[in-house]
């Protein structure tokens, strides 16, 4: 699939601010599942944005506006070709050798340990929370791909997806009290279970096909939703490498998804991070408007 993506980030302030630094994670990059055909970032009144890769390899654009101003607008345009026609099309490793495969991957790429060991309140150890929730346990002899599917289904049963919700619950405990959350919350819950098994699982964000936001034809009550960034969980699957699982949709991530950033949890991949002087930080208004168009 090919997608044309436009992401418009705006921030405004009640009073002028200065020395405004902004970091944006909006632009996709090449990886095994996608190819960037074109990409540009435009900002009014700002010198050429600089670009680097963060510690997880995500592209980050940095902008700075020194002079006093009350608003800043940035647009990212990209054309992407997604390549993952069938995410289940790979040479599987037999279930009895899967752990060995993962262990060897960890040995060869120690950076993967971040996605096994890291815990924060949003990806807390479910057993340690003592909620009395029956948490899925690994089943020896079953293929990991199949097991992750089961856990994804479990997440969907434990926690409803609220498509209008864009907040991220900072605590897994709160999410499990509410039993309803954003795609990021569900991704955190899936990560929490898999890391408990010792399986590398990372938080991913990106854009999805516009069809995700169109109303359900069979349900007259549903309305079109504003396009948003999506969060899901990437899992290291033996024989396949990283494969995405979207517990909000119950889908294995395929060519309808465009990956933008990965990290240990949502905080690592925030779309915008800013500092400025002057003005009242609580009186700033930020918006991110996304427009994804399938071009073929």
């Amino acid at each position, binding site marked *: 699939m090919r997608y044309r993506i436009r992401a418009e980030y705006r921030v405004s302030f009640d009073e002028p601010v200065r020395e405004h630094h902004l970091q944006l994670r909006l632009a996709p990059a090449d990886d095994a599942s996608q190819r960037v055909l074109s990409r540009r970032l435009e900002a009014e009144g700002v010198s050429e944005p600089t670009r680097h890769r963060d510690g*997880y390899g995500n592209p980050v654009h940095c902008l700075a506006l020194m002079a006093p101003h009350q608003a800043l607008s940035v647009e990212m345009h990209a054309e992407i070709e997604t390549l993952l026609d069938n995410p289940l099309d790979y040479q599987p490793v037999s279930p009895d050798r899967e752990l060995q495969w993962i262990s060897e991957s960890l040995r060869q790429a120690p950076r993967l340990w971040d996605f096994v060991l890291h815990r924060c309140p949003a990806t807390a150890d479910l057993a340690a929370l003592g909620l009395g929730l029956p948490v899925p346990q690994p089943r020896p002899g079953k293929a990991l791909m199949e097991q992750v599917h089961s856990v994804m289904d479990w997440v969907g049963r434990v926690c409803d997806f609220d498509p209008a919700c864009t907040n991220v619950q900072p605590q897994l405990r709160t999410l499990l009290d509410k039993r309803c959350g954003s795609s990021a919350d569900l991704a955190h819950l899936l990560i929490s279970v898999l890391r408990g098994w010792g399986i590398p699982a990372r938080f991913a964000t990106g854009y999805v096909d516009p069809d995700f936001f169109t109303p359900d034809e069979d349900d007259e009550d549903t309305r079109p939703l504003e396009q948003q960034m999506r969060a899901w969980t990437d899992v290291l699957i033996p024989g396949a490498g990283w494969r995405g699982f979207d517990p909000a949709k119950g889908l294995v991530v395929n060519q309808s998804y465009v990956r933008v950033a990965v990290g240990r949890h949502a905080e690592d991949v925030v779309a915008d991070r800013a500092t400025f002087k002057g003005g009242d930080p609580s009186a700033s208004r930020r918006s991110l408007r996304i427009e994804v168009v399938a071009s073929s």
Partner: protein
Amino acid sequence: MLRQYQFQSAASSPPPPSRATAYHEFYQDDFHPREHYRPMWEHIQHAGQHLLDAKAREAHLTLHTEGVTFTLYSDQDEGIERVWPFDILPRIITAAEWRAIEAGLKQRVRAMNLLLKDLYHGQNVLKDGVIPPELIYQGKDFRREIMDIDPPHSIYTHIGGIDLIRDERGCYLVLEDNLRTPSGVSYMIENRVVERRILPEFFERYRVRRVEHYPALLLQALRYLSPRGEEAATIAVLTPGQFNSAYFEHTFLAKEMGVELAEGRDMVCKNDRVYLKTTKGLRQVDVVYRRVDDDFLDPLVFRRDSVLGVAGIINAWRAGNVAIVNAPGSGIADDKAVYAHAPDIIRYYLGETPILENVPTYQMTDARDRTYVLDNLERMVVKAVAESGGYGMLMGPTSTAGQRAEFVKKIQENPRNYIAQPVVQLSRHICYLDGELESRHLDLRPFVIYGRDIQVVPGGLTRVAMTKGSLIVNSSQGGGSKDTWVLAE
């Protein structure tokens, strides 16, 4: 599932704690002064109590007048400014002893620098199983944000303050590697200045090597790092401000080096360059000697709520337009759990036998070590791995049952956050206290500068536990200090 594949701790369990008596720096076993202390001993006897009392008072007054102070924090976190505590009798290290110390420190800093470069790039040390990856990835001071950044000249540990102690056998051991923002060097110099002023007659009897040139050596090393070349280098000391306990040192070093002292608000980043705001406009900065912790260095990258750092400085560093001293992320090399692997790190990167030994260390992530420590807590020193200054520590022999219970809980909740060491009887030295010669325990913090090459200033900060029998030497915990003399060949 994967737990069974995790690496086992590479550091072997240490032997049970020794109960031997402390080594005495000054006296031999027969209570006669050691050879190199004899001239000093003769002078002390000749001077008598009256004169030594006067000298001690003069030292205190000098430090007071010069404003040589430090901030002592109470339980209420209300800083109390105190005159720097100083004992007039110097510690003396022979040239032969110093040769070994110097070689050991250079070896250690070189290896730790290679470790940092590797951890933030290829991670071969983890791939080869020399250090368990969990140790690094669960370390509070491992900074993923700086992965693959190349600091100028690949140097991370520009300034090291390595704490040494002397065990019961008289062997120098490394107690801690301080590779983030080690402090104390200003006090090392002030101690020497005061000693020279009040006891010039001592210096007539010894050929003591200089330490006062430390700022010049540091300046030389900082200039070497300048991306625009040494001649054009603009250098700034970045301080958290006057409320920081080491503010005296920040002002001292800036003044002695003749460079700018700045707070975060005095600087700005633009186009991946760091600038000082001056009355004549922006002035590009090439080297930032930061005395601000990583967490607060750049709110765009680390803690968002920091007002102490400079937004964008990490990007400027990444772009190669500024050098940051010490490099961000250096803290993982002085994590006390990583410290236990220092001998392996030296062997791995340098192919050499460690010259300076470690204090035996128990890893609380190792179930066997943990059980042993929890069963013998009253004989152990327990330390939080990323703390310094004597904070977050349990001194087993002097602890209460309540304190031990608190640490048992802490260790069980977060074993990665703690290590334990048997109580080493730090060596002792005579001090002149209230008209008496009393023996007190002490350690030594020599300072290492890594610029064009690695240099160790001959001397260091000798820290003294001022309370009789106490092993806590940290100035933040009420410790004092001595001038440290390294004798010329």
